[in-house]
């Protein structure tokens, strides 16, 4: 394949990806030149959750499975990326670690848009950098919510909520007030289950319930439940 047709096929592919549809010809060619191409066998690991990120991944062919793993080895698939899909979008923009792991569901070839290349497209619009970082942060948060709902028990999610919200009485910050229904909606459960989970946490000695007060008396014990 000549240099020209090699680049033309990359640019044509880029044009099918929403991110790059509106790129000018010169920029599209530059991005096309800077793409890294990688091929993976079926089942091969592409990257691991927590590692630093190479850039934005584009599926040229095949399918890629994006998943999270629990400490016990359970897995939840968050996305099967197919030809023309992007993945690992959040770290590609915010530079944080990969929020998920990726393996090739079948033999797959991907393009990687290096992070610097991606960020260079935003240079002309500083506000865009802020906007995509906020959106990347939201995406990370939602990924975490899915992880919590999938892998954690209600008691564990409640322990996390109490740790996040609890405020010492002598502090300036207002003490949060939540009904059991409100706690349930925040941990993705229902009132009765939350009521039982609160009693279970009390039995462990991590909290004490005194009338309308939930006292976090052993935060370390709650942390061990996460």
């Amino acid at each position: 394949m000549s240099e020209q047709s090699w680049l033309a096929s990359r640019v044509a592919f880029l044009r099918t990806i929403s991110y790059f549809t509106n790129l000018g010809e010169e920029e599209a060619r530059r991005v096309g030149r800077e793409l890294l191409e990688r091929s993976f066998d079926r089942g091969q690991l592409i990257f691991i959750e927590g590692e630093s990120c190479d850039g934005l991944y584009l599926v040229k062919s095949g399918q890629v499975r994006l998943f999270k793993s629990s400490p016990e080895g359970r897995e939840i698939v968050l996305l099967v990326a197919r030809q023309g899909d992007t993945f690992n979008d959040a770290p590609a923009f915010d530079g944080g670690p990969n929020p998920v792991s990726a393996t090739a569901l079948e033999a797959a070839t991907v393009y990687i848009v290096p992070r610097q290349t991606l960020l260079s497209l935003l240079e002309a619009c500083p506000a865009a950098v802020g906007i995509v970082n906020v959106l990347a942060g939201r995406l990370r948060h939602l990924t975490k919510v899915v992880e919590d709902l999938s892998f954690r028990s209600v008691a564990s999610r409640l322990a996390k909520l109490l740790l996040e919200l609890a405020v010492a009485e002598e502090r300036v910050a207002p003490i949060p007030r939540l009904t059991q229904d409100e706690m349930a909606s925040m941990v993705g459960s229902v009132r009765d289950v939350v009521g039982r989970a609160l009693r279970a946490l009390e039995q462990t000695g991590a909290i004490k319930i005194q009338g309308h007060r939930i006292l976090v008396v052993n935060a370390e014990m709650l942390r061990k439940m996460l």
Partner: protein
Amino acid sequence: MASIVEISSEKCTGCGVCVIKCPTQAVALVDGKAVIVRSKACNYCTECETLCDFGAIRCPFEIILVEPEVGK
């Protein structure tokens, strides 16, 4: 400990279910609306909140961090 049960007089229809079911008789109807009349008697079982079909009663919990004392 005084109760912090919140009753919305706008939402309360005065049906009296909370008055009948309250195990400590802490709530009563006053001018046709449910009111906590014996705050110290309320044991915060939150039954009234569960039973109210009109969403008029909230039983929020304060979430308080008890920090370990220094040196312990």
